Structure formats: C-alpha cells, structure tokens
C-alpha cells in the first residue's frame, strides 16, 4: 500500500500540519520507504490473536473518577500564550470571522 501526494496532504490536514508542496515529494518517498518494511506484517498469521493485549501484564489499578485538580506551582497566565478572564484565548474560527462579538 503506497501513499500518494493526496494521501499525505490529507493526513497532514488531519494532523494539523502545514506541509509545503516543496516538501511533499521527500515526505511521500520517505513514508513509502518506511511503509514498505511494514508489509512484512501482512504475511503473519494472526488468526485468533487478540488485538487488545496491554503491555502491562498486571491489571491496571483503577482510581476513583473524581476529576481531581492537580495543584500548579504557577498560574496558567505564566505559561499560556494568551489568556483573558481565566480562559485560554484563541483566534476566531475562519467560519465565524463575520460573526459579531
């Protein structure tokens, strides 16, 4: 299964990455070279093998679903790019640029 230029444009959009047209040929070539090595897996018989085996071989302990707040040593204003009235500020969605405040 080889990726095309359009595939890479599509997955770059999904991943919120701005990939330039100049860089596309290199990325397509590299991804296809890597994926070619993955083809080896298609020859492995995995019939009856579960796909949800966790790496941790001991059962994960469950904690209370209490939505705890972890104390921060510094307020969010010290590390957030933009904040106002306790909220993170972001640019307006392009689809809402014409909507009044």
């Amino acid at each position: 299964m080889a990726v095309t230029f359009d595939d890479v444009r599509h997955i770059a959009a999904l991943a919120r990455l701005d990939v330039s047209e100049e860089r596309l040929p290199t990325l397509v070539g590299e991804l296809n070279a890597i994926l070619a090595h993955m083809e080896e897996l298609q020859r492995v018989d995995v019939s009856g093998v579960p796909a949800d085996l966790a790496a941790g071989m001991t059962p994960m302990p469950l904690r209370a679903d209490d939505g705890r707040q972890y104390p921060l040593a510094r307020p969010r204003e010290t590390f957030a790019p933009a904040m106002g009235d306790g909220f993170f500020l972001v640019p307006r969605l392009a689809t809402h640029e014409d909507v009044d405040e």
Partner: protein
Amino acid sequence: MNANFERAAGLNIILAEDRDARPSVDEGPLYDVPVAIKDNIATLRMPTSCGSRILEGYVSPYEATVVSRLRAAGAVIACKTNMDEFAMGSSTEHSAFGPALNPVDRTRVPGGSSGGSAAAVAAGVVPIAFGSETGGSVRQPAAFCGVVGVKPTYGRVSRFGLVAFASSLDQVGVFGKTVDDAALALRIIAGRDPMDATSADVPVPDYRAAATRPVSTLTIGRPIEYFPDALDPAIRERCDEVLDRLREQGATIRDVSLPHSGLAIPVYYIIAPAEASSNLARFDGVRYGLRITGEGLTAMYEATRSKGFGTEVTRRILLGTYVLSAGYYDAYYRKAQQVRALITEDFRRVFASGVDVLFTPTTPTPAFKLGAVSDPYEMYLNDIFTCTANLAGNAAISVPIGTVNGLPIGGQIIAPHFGEQTMFAAAYALERL
C-alpha cells in the same frame, strides 16, 4: 559535548539553588548527589523543552514524581539533558538545540534518544542520570557511551510528569556509572504513585541485595534471533566470551527462540508513531509553548505545529496519523497490535520454561559517526534488540561488556515482568567479569 543545556559555568548556581529548595533536610540515600534529568521529565526550576522548539523555554507548573522522589532522597537536580525531539530518535541528532556528542569519541553520536543523560554519566558530570525509554532510548545510549542503562518493567516507575510519547511503551529509565548506582537509583524512583494510574502496586525490593546472589543459581537464555549472521563479528565474539565466562562461573546457558522478534521493528514503528500522533496533538499553541498566529484557529494550529516540530517528529506524526486513518487501521495498527501479542507471548513462554533472564547484545553496532545515518528506517534498526522489551513490557538493562575498536559495547539482560531483582543479579555478575 552539548549534553546539558545549562553551561558548566552555571551548574554551581543551579546546584546551590536546588539544594536550598529540597523538601527534606534529612540525609537521604542520595544526599548531595547531583543527578541529571532528561529534558522530557518535568522540573519546577528548569525548563522542560523536550528538545523541541515548540516547548522552548517552557517551565512546567508541576514536578514529575520521579523528580520529587529524588529530591526527597536528598539528590540535587543538577541539570536537564539534551535529547532527540520528543524522544524520537536513536542518536540525539534530532534535537532542536543541536546534537549531543559521545564523550568517548566526539565525532560519534552518544545514541538516543536519552543521549545527553548517557553522555553526562560517561563524562563524569554526574554519577546518576535519568532518561525515558520507548524503544531502547536508555539502553542503546548506555551501550554507546559505556555506562549502565535500565529500562524498568512497564508500570514499575511513575510517569507523572514524563511528557508522553507512546503511552503503552513509555517508561522512565536510569543511567549509572555502575550497576550498583543504577540499582540504588531505581529503588528510589520505583513504586506505586496515585498520580499515575498505570503505575503498578507491586512491592519494591532492595535491588542492591541482588549483588550477593550467586551466578550459579541463574539460568540464562541466549535467544538465537538476537545473534543473526549480519551481527558485527566483533560484538558476537565478545558476547560469546561473556557467555563462556558466565558458564565457567556456574550459570546455566541455554539457547532459546523468540520467533517473532524479527517483526519487532515494523510493529514498533506502527504502534509508537500512532500513539505519538495522538499524544502530540496537545501541542497546538493554545495552552502552552510556542504559538504562531495565522488567519483563524486552524491556521494557528498548522503554523504552530509546522514551525514547532522538527523533521523526524513531523514524519512520525504523519506516519501515525496514516496508520490510524480510516481504511488503513486494520491493515497496520490492528495487525501490529496482534503481532505485538505474539512477541509478548514469546517472552512469556521462554520465562515460563525455567529461564531466569535472557542475554543479548544491546545494539547491532557500536556508536556511529555523527551524520552517518540519514535514512530514517536505517536509524530505526538501532532499536532492533531493545524495542521487544518495550513491546512486551519486560525489564531490561544494558551493561558495558568491553570495547570494539576502542568504542564501548553493551550486553543486554532481559527479565520477566517485575523481575528487576533477578535482572540485577545477572547484571552484577556481568559487571564483575
């Protein structure tokens, strides 16, 4: 050697500040011992940038549990160490802040992704350092730099404050000049942490007590798949000598087979990028780190991430997004998870057959020259002997076993889940040879 972001001239100031800031004045097992911390483990008083422009200068508002435990044990957090960006790499060449160099030969890489921590211990800057493991990022640089490197069992050490790369694989690891230093350090950071739901509630023994276990009580497996025809002949020869010496000392050496190990690289490089593509979605310029503004929200996301991430991280995010995308999930991600289950079962079966630990080379070659490996997949092959322990969740350690053409090489001991005590017993024996 660019191992540490903080220049040597500033090191004393940091030491003094940190000494004053320690929560306990009691003498602990690491009292006044300077330790180095990989730059993806959160510290309150130094930046945590993950070797990335997107987090350049970011100072965490909370501290990793590992760091808290070290400080409570009396350690002094001396410096943060250079790394491949977001721990994606095997050479520490993929840092936004320049490559780290191998102190044994500065024309060569120290390995990666925890190359700065390995170099710091090898150069004598600190006796103990900490890194993170996803596919071999502690053991491989330990082997390249001639120090000891431990990858604990999945769940053995809290990951609270470790910036996530691939959450089903990540684990905090330890570097030491000696096995004894590594055993001491691991005991301090290991154990259940309520802040990390994946940390296991399993008792932490005194790993240093393993030093007294006679090697004659150990059955050591030699997995034939880890000694392929293509293995560097000098590394094979040295490994054979090591096994002969252990046999002479009374250990039982047995050839075993882990038949699916040869599939580990493709499995790893599907699962790890898939998880990374999800974990790194949080770096979008909204809550912390770099923000590049654009025309609207989506443009800001794309501009921030494209300027903030380097080439290898971008490549892996794209690969991970692809293998998780509709139409390809079953062929890649689901298949990789199933083969991962087969790899895990291989280990379980061998250990259930009476083998205490496995012995393999840590890497297929010694440290390579800076810039010598440009093909991404060729770089990925550095993890060929190490990433299986991450996929299966086992404990593993790399111990120096000599040199090839003046360059250090490592021998790897792999142990069952939470079998660190047995792992250290074999490691002490290896170190004494």
